[in-house]
């Protein structure tokens, strides 16, 4: 009974946090791209546009959902549901941190610990393509159909190098459970260099990491591989006939998939929640330091405001940051918050790379995309797996 209650609480908490993160990821993306392109980005709704996601959600919910008369209505409505369901469900096997003890109850910071966790993620992500393919087909529109076809071809092609890139760190870790993979990366070489899989082992997995990240861009339909929704040739690709909440569902699925692949990359290659350097050298003070500096910057700019409202908003943010920095220093919270911070920091950095690349790179041509997968990435992943397997066999 206690187990059920704890699981329900965790479920509600993770669902709430994930949905909030998804909404704000879009704000971060718009802000970062705007600053890369020397613009302001969203700035009207709330201070610094911080209430923009809320406004977008309200707009999308209250808009009329138009169903075009020529669509295959059952599959047309099934597709966005399928896409968002498959995207959200994979968060359930991802571990965020070490265990959590409140009074007599101990629980893992993870919804469920499956001993084939990584395969569950692969299985769910391989099912995710149906949402997009069906959306393209059921819309009964040639642009949408082309988008759906491209997406399924692209996802099948990039799933191969992705699976091969995942297989190599699994060979070194020797397990399929995500928690055990992270635990196998604990500790430091020479007391300072972390034993993360991109550094450690008989063969550093840096190539697997690069191949995985490239495939992840293709699997999540992000620039430079966002051919399924290429605006200049396909209008909007597979979701051209969708509006209001069904349209939002596809965007939510895309962002949820981004969060999932970034978490997987963090868990498999970047040591999960293990810090970059040992706690003995003060890795526990990184989070409060960053927050403290952020708070100080906010207060400084609040005292020298560039815009009239900054006089009030920035000091408020500064005080919030100082408060968070204080919370991070409370001794009995440190063992819980520090793993969480390091996990979120790595994950957030990878998400930032996704946005950064979107602001930087142009789109591939379709034949280049396929040629790159089959002639470049796939042989590279195969070779990498071969070398890793050989060296693991030699080392054991």
């Amino acid at each position, binding site marked *: 009974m206690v187990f059920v209650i704890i699981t329900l609480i965790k479920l509600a908490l993770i669902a709430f946090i994930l949905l909030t993160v998804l909404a704000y990821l879009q704000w971060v993306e718009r802000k970062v791209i705007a600053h890369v392109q020397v613009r302001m980005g969203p700035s009207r709704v709330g201070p610094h546009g911080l209430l923009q996601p809320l406004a977008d959600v309200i707009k999308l919910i209250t808009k009329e959902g138009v169903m075009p008369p020529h669509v295959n209505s059952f599959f047309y409505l099934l597709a966005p549901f399928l896409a968002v369901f498959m995207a959200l469900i994979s968060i359930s096997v991802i571990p965020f941190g070490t265990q959590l003890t409140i009074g007599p109850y101990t629980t893992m910071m993870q919804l469920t610990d499956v001993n*084939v966790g990584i*395969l569950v993620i*692969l*299985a769910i992500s*391989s099912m995710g393509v149906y949402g997009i393919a069906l959306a*393209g*087909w059921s819309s009964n529109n040639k642009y949408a159909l082309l988008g759906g*076809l491209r997406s*399924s071809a692209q996802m099948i092609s990039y799933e191969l190098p992705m699976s091969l890139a995942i297989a190599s760190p699994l060979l070194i870790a020797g397990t399929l459970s995500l928690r055990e993979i992270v635990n196998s990366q604990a500790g430091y070489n020479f007391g300072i260099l972390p034993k993360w899989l991109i550094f450690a082992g008989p063969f550093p997995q840096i190539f697997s990491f690069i191949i995985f990240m490239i495939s992840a861009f293709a699997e999540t339909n992000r620039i430079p591989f966002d051919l399924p929704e290429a605006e200049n040739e396909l209008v909007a690709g597979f979701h051209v006939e969708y509006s209001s909440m069904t349209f939002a569902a596809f965007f939510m699925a895309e962002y949820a998939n981004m969060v999932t692949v970034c978490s997987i990359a963090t868990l498999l290659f970047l040591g999960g929640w293990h810090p970059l350097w040992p706690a003995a050298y003060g890795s526990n003070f990184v989070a409060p330091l960053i927050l403290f500096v952020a708070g100080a910057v906010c207060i400084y700019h609040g005292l020298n405001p560039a815009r009239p409202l900054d006089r009030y908003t920035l000091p408020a943010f500064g005080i919030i940051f100082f408060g968070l920095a204080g919370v991070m220093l409370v001794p009995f919270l440190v063992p819980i918050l520090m793993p969480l911070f390091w996990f979120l920091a790595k994950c957030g950095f990878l998400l930032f790379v996704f946005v950064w690349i979107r602001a930087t790179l142009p789109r591939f041509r379709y034949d280049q995309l396929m040629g790159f997968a089959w002639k470049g990435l796939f042989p590279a992943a195969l070779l990498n797996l071969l070398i890793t397997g050989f060296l693991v066999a030699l080392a054991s």
Partner: protein
Amino acid sequence: MDIFFFLVFAAIALISAVNVVLQRHPIASALSLIGVMGSIAVLYLLLGAEFIAMAQIIVYAGAVMVLFIFVIMLLNAGAEVRRGRSWTSQLLGIPALLAFVGLIVLFVQRGFADAGYVKFGNFTGGSAQSVGLALFTSYLLPFEVTSVLILVAILGTIVLARKEMD
């Protein structure tokens, strides 16, 4: 609890399997087939074969069925037009089906008469490790022969595709 899940997912598998045949549109049939694959994966999971279950979803429900749907979408196959069935199939269809099912039941009863009932969750050969060991020790020859077969199929595909390109 196990028996409840078994009944639910076995029912879903059977209904989806019948639906594959009953649906007029190829996409609907293919999606029903995915339902069959998925529920069979859950049945594997109930038996404790978690690796096989996930492989079932990744390979069959994921890769194979995506290709099916891809081809159906590429050919833009429309809904099937029902024509009247021939009098032989109308007359002999159900009896032939019953006879076939009866033969299978007879075969299972004769061939595996001493086999006990399945106990859910008691099966312990399903981890990735034991499947891998079995593949590379006792079933090495079938495994290798299968890979050669798949290689031949890939080569054949490339030869066929090249001819069209030139």
